[in-house]
């Protein structure tokens, strides 16, 4: 029973109506949409804070907000963007939607846990949002003790609890992915036939379960110290503030790969599809993902080179940080090599993918300046750092997220967006992004410290450039919102496989039915991305 039956079955969006059918759904695809809404909300919250930051920094003196407010703004910007937007972004939205479909399963292993994870996310989010509106916090997203435990203004404890709850949400998603990927692959789909996106999701999940609990306990101890006045990290009470930093970065460095690995997975899918070519060096790409995940736990001390950590420890961490750059190098070069002799079609996702590769490379290479001890001493805690991580996280990870969203949008909604607008906004984003963050590299080298509310006047010109860029960037993020939503007004207008891509998800209808596949597919192809082999093209 093939095609006619599929026609009659309702797709997952129309499988049920009414509030309950959404809020109590256990369908991974519906949960992905719920996540999409929550996460977009937080992105705009974080973006709103960023706009205020940039406006304040237009002039050297303080004008639109007070110093206290400024400090709360960058703290809440960092927390919203890192914990509530970027860490869950690709896994919880695209991963949730695609992991079962790409491996030929009907759902994730634990559908109810999946729904619980969304509720926890929102619960933690609302908790934090409440704390942000009601007083805010001013510790910086890093919560360094003893400032956060004994001196900080505002609602440190509620925010810490919010992040703690959020941690549970990530952990549940991660456990779900691990069990699903291990145990629910379609017959014949062996590990080395998996799309790289699945590898990336798997590695991300592993990092999440190993790292998140450590930051959870650390934040709990911090809250304990702040509430009870008991000593844990505050030297006035016998504690050691450097220990807080160790425990915090034990998670938060691997977390930066939680943020970028999923994007790397997306880019591999997009590049192969639009170059119509097999990925260059599939196995080493997979190994590189796992290598990054494993090494990511060995380098956290590079955030602490001037913290008073031992010089020897600093050297060990520096050496290992250089080492973790090597698998990233492999990935960048292999993508470039994949494009060589391809047949490249310039659709929107591939524009974002180009953006990702270029900007991630710049971000990554500037990471080397920071992994190198002597230069980090000068650059740490300056705008160079700010530029480094925005290049990777905004230029890299967010672009990857947008690439994926555009690539799978027809699959998710059954509708194609307006290509011209989409290309236009990709261009705007690229220009705005570079104008915003490139000047910050120079600012950092000149010595402008980060988290500065007022600054010496000679830094103004570069700051004005950055603010100008940010307003272009903000505009660039609004446009996709509009045309993507607009596309929903149309009737369904795409078939199962608008891009002619390989991959099991493209064999289902767009949008897919609730159970994805009528029959569990059996995989006989030699591997993923068989674009060169015309036979393997799924029609």
């Amino acid at each position, binding site marked *: 029973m093939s095609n006619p039956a599929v026609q009659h079955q309702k797709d997952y969006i129309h499988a049920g109506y009414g509030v309950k059918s959404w809020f109590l759904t256990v369908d991974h695809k519906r949960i992905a949409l719920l996540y999409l809404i929550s996460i977009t909300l937080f992105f705009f919250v974080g973006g709103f804070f960023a706009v205020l930051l940039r406006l304040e920094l237009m002039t050297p003196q303080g004008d639109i907000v007070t110093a206290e407010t400024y400090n709360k703004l960058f703290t809440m910007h960092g927390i919203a963007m890192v914990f509530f937007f970027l860490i869950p972004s690709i896994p919880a939205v695209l991963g949730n939607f695609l992991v*079962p479909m790409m491996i030929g*399963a*009907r*759902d*994730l*292993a*634990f*559908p109810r846990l999946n729904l619980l994870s969304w509720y926890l996310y929102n619960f933690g989010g609302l908790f934090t949002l409440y704390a942000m509106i009601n007083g805010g916090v001013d510790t910086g997203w890093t919560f360094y003790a003893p400032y956060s435990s004994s001196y900080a203004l505002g609602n440190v404890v509620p925010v810490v609890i919010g992040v703690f709850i959020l941690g549970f949400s990530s*952990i549940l998603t*991660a*456990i*779900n992915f*691990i*069990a*699903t990927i*291990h*145990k*629910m692959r379609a017959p014949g789909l062996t590990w080395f036939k998996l799309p790289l996106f699945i590898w990336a999701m798997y590695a991300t999940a592993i990092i999440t*379960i*190993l*790292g*998140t*609990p*450590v930051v*959870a*306990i*650390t934040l*709990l*101890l911090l809250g*304990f*110290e702040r509430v*009870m*006045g*008991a*000593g*844990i990290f505050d030297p006035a*009470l*016998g*504690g*050691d503030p450097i*220990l807080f930093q160790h*425990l915090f970065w*034990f998670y938060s460095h691997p977390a930066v790969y939680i943020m970028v690995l999923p994007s790397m997975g997306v880019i591999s899918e997009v590049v192969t599809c639009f170059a119509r070519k097999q990925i260059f060096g599939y196995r080493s790409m997979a190994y590189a993902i796992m290598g990054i995940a494993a090494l990511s736990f060995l380098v956290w001390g590079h955030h602490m080179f001037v913290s008073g950590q031992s010089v020897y420890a600093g050297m060990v961490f520096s050496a290992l940080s250089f080492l973790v750059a090597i698998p990233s190098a492999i990935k960048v070069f292999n993508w470039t090599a994949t494009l060589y002799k391809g047949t490249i079609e310039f659709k929107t996702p591939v524009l974002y993918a180009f953006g990702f590769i270029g900007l991630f490379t710049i971000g990554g290479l500037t990471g080397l300046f920071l992994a190198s001890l002597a230069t980090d001493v000068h650059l740490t805690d300056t705008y160079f750092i700010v530029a480094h991580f925005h290049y990777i996280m905004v230029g890299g990870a967010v672009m990857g997220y947008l690439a994926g969203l555009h690539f799978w949008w027809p699959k998710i909604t059954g509708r194609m967006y307006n290509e011209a607008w989409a290309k236009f906004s990709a261009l705007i984003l690229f220009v705005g992004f570079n104008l915003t963050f490139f000047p910050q590299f120079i600012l950092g080298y000149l010595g402008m410290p980060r988290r500065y509310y007022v600054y010496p006047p000679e830094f103004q010109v570069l700051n004005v450039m950055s603010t100008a860029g940010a307003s272009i960037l903000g505009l660039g993020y609004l446009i996709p919102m509009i045309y993507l939503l607009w596309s929903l007004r149309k009737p369904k207008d795409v078939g199962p496989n608008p891009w002619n891509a390989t991959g099991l998800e493209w064999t289902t209808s767009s949008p897919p039915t609730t*159970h994805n596949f009528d029959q*569990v597919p059996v995989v006989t192809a030699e591997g993923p991305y068989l674009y060169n082999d015309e036979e393997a093209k799924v029609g």
Partner: protein
Amino acid sequence: MDKPQSTVAHHFEDMDQQREAGTLGMWAFLVTEIMFFGGVFAAYAIYHHMYPEAFGEASKTLSVVLGATNTAVLICSSLTMAFAVRSAQLNQRKRLVGFLILTIILGSAFLGIKAVEYSHKIHEHHVPGASFVFEGPHSGGAELFFSFYFAMTGLHALHMVIGIGLMVWLIVKAQRGRFSSEYHAPVEMAGLYWHFVDIVWVFLFPLLYLISRA
């Protein structure tokens, strides 16, 4: 037993796949628990390294008798839990419920003894914070020790309370005949969790009570 209920969820192929996925998921969760407690253990180890004498002095004020008794109680509860799982495997509903109740009783006994210890500590003003008092030269380090004592045993106790809650739920389900030798994954999961909590205590006991008895 009751009529065979279909216990394979719609998205799984068969029982084996469902059970394997469940076990793997549970172990992934236990890994997060290892790292969670690992974080405090690491912090404890660092401070023990920094203030060995103070930690020793403070540790001496704990009661080895109560600590050791509690260790034994917890090991007993692990045994009853293991038997509970075994009963479920063998489809022995009465025994399953009986062992779960025994486990709950033992778990509660542990918490009771813990409560006695806490009340002693509160009495002796060993609770860190404004009212903390510790005679002798090591009061700073001792306060740290007690911060960890309460944080670690408190988290451990919280896990036990959750475990007891799980078992109450299991008993209800078992009474309704939901488990069989085919399907008893929830019992197994609860068992894994309970044993893990036991293991945490196996490390907490020497680290908190025994470090300076010699």
